[in-house]
């Protein structure tokens, strides 16, 4: 079916299958930052914003984003790079495969929470798994980023 939606601020008409997932639809459309890390809705790699809320694109049927605002990391490139600079300075991107989903969640947290405590940061990001870094470097980067931003 055809749906009208907004991706990264641009109105777009998407042709999607009834059972197509948003993650697949976005990749097919060239948003290759969307990664899939699991089949069970629990790794956070595919996180995008739907109407500003961090959401699993792998668990969202594409037709359901009709008339919604989708944001991928490509749509917040400047903010993403600002945080990525801090993250990379800590070496905490490592393999980078989970980074887009992680960064989208960090940026969403920044919008949603004012001066989060360390516990709140950890809680907000628990749904983003990472096997490389051991999380500590990511936490250091977030604290620096929030402290400096």
């Amino acid at each position, binding site marked *: 079916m055809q749906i009208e939606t907004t991706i990264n601020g641009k109105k777009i008409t998407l042709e999607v299958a009834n059972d197509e997932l948003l993650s697949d639809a976005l990749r097919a459309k060239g948003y290759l930052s969307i990664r899939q890390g699991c089949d069970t809705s*629990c790794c956070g790699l595919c996180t995008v914003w739907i109407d500003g809320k961090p*959401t699993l694109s792998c668990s969202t049927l594409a037709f359901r984003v009709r008339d919604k605002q989708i944001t991928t990391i490509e749509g917040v490139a400047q903010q993403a790079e600002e945080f990525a600079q801090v993250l990379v300075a800590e070496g905490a991107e490592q393999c980078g495969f989970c980074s887009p989903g992680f960064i989208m969640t960090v940026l969403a947290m920044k919008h949603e929470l004012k001066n989060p405590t360390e516990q709140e940061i950890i*809680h907000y990001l628990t749904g983003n798994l990472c096997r490389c870094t051991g999380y500590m470097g990511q936490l250091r980067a977030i604290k620096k980023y929030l402290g400096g931003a």
Partner: protein
Amino acid sequence: MFTIEQVLQPETLEEAYQALHGNISNTVLGGCAFLRLGSKKIATAIDLSELKLDYILEPGKEIEIGAMTTFRTVETHPTLHQLFNGVLPKSVSNIIGVQFRNVVTVGATVYSKYGFSDLLTALLALDTEVELYKGGRLPLEEFLQKSFPKDILTRLFIQKNARKASYQSMRNSLSDYPILTIAVSELNQRWRIVVGARPLRAQLASKASEALSNSKLTAEDIEQSASLAVEELSFGSNIRGSAEYRKAMCKVLVKRGIMEVLQCK
């Protein structure tokens, strides 16, 4: 791999209900977080998104929660943080992650009667009713115990009262599904003890609740009702834990739940 042949986004509940009964494999969509886990072949997927069921209202003596409300909304709702010592936000806050809780819905969780559900355990300890489109309003407990013809869960109603509550769960990894869940609540000296993820679905431990309500709440009484809960409920084994361990944890967590309620303001 699941498949969907047709999608219907009805504008009325009646339309949704009719569609649901059109074909045996027609299905109401919830948050869809678990859709990929199975290989369901759905003829018509009924999406309730257009029915404006994503809300939490508190018109009078009740909290009203629409079926399409997400866990994240429950988790962050200011009133729910104040009521019942925040037992509802507390129950959902450890489930996977924010982006998951922005997907899963209250209605689908309750209607599916998931055994591992944290939320069901907490809801059952409160004065909760569900509303089915055809079946009407009924207590959550009754809904969980009986089976009903295919229907659409539209709303939850929770009595806004001075019930004090505590939520306890046993998890190994903190973002894992629980090994056991417990909710304990008290209103006017009447106690409710609920145990979930046994791994069977949440159930009221009625004898234990009764005994506690009629007791003087001494350490011995608490110990005894925790034991009663273990005796009256059945426990099973799965990859997260054995029945034996679950029984032991039931006793520990029920006690902790009661103690916490006693300390609640």
